[in-house]
């Protein structure tokens, strides 16, 4: 229920903190995002803002998309994302939102599309162990048994098998924002985030999971 931001993963590097420790960080281009739509209790029955991010040629947008963006007077934007809020507050249509909504040391959740690995086998996809490579063994990367025999006479649903891996939405929770560069709209986030450089990321303040400590 808080405002996040859309961004692009730029790559990873390392920096040094005050104690001289090296920290692996991901550099993220966070915004600038435009407020393209504001939803309120009166108009939509709930409160939310829609943010737009990323350059795109106008000809690549459909007429309905262009019309929607024209309402907020924003330039053509590639990605739109809605954030539920408790109340809209002082956000206005067309307002620009940058990395400055975050601060140093804050925890964030980062969601993105993981690196696609195509049709992956058992070892890579589910961390199965492989069979022996020698001593006459022909069972190198096979799955082993997939279940009992005549009873039940079928493989149970959910049996882990080879198949498409990666290229799915992954959220990494509770990453630390090491540094915010409000001028260039950059975030330095400690650790790795999903996907390759250039992937679209959704960065939101960390969602607290579990019961609060009494």
């Amino acid at each position: 229920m808080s405002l996040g931001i859309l961004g692009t993963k730029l790559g990873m590097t390392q920096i040094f903190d005050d104690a001289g420790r090296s920290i692996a960080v991901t550099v993220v281009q966070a915004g600038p995002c435009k407020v393209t739509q504001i939803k309120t209790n009166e108009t939509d029955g709930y409160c939310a803002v829609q943010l737009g991010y990323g350059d795109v040629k106008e000809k690549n947008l459909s007429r309905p998309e262009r019309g929607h963006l024209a309402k907020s007077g924003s330039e053509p934007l590639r990605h739109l994302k809605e954030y539920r809020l408790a109340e809209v507050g002082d956000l206005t249509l067309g307002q620009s939102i940058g990395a400055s909504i975050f601060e140093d040391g804050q925890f964030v959740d980062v969601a993105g599309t993981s690196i696609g690995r195509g049709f992956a086998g058992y070892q890579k996809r589910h961390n199965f162990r492989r069979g022996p490579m020698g001593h006459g063994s022909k069972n190198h990367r096979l799955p082993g048994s997939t279940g009992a025999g005549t009873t039940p006479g079928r493989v149970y649903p959910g049996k882990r098998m080879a198949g498409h891996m990666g290229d799915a939405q992954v959220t990494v929770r509770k990453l630390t924002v090491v540094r915010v560069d409000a001028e260039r709209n950059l975030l330095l986030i400690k650790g790795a985030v999903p996907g390759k450089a250039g992937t679209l990321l959704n960065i939101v303040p960390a969602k607290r999971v579990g019961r609060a400590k009494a």
Partner: protein
Amino acid sequence: MNAQEIVRSIEAEYLKPASDLPTIYVGDTVRVGVRIQEGGKERVQPYEGTVIAMRNGGISETITVRRTFQGVGVERVFLLNSPRVAEIKIVRRGKVRRAKLYYLRDRVGKATRIKERFDRAK
């Protein structure tokens, strides 16, 4: 600025100025001053040995320094741009024909000597 340039510009803020780091070659004997925190006090501890490997890569540039201490081989990897590495002094330039001197790990005593070269400034 493209993505790569932005990442480089962030690294640049943490890189040491070129004058702080001497030109190090594999085979050199170096003395590295390591900053150590001890009970709230900070001091610089020297560590001397042979550079047996280097890894380039901007901010993540490292050298591996090997020495034999009390008959036990010790190898330490130093992040050259780290603030913990206070100073690096070249003690001796060595003449070697490999980029990685891992063969020194299998040798002891006199066999670990490296011929000195005099055509490179210290």
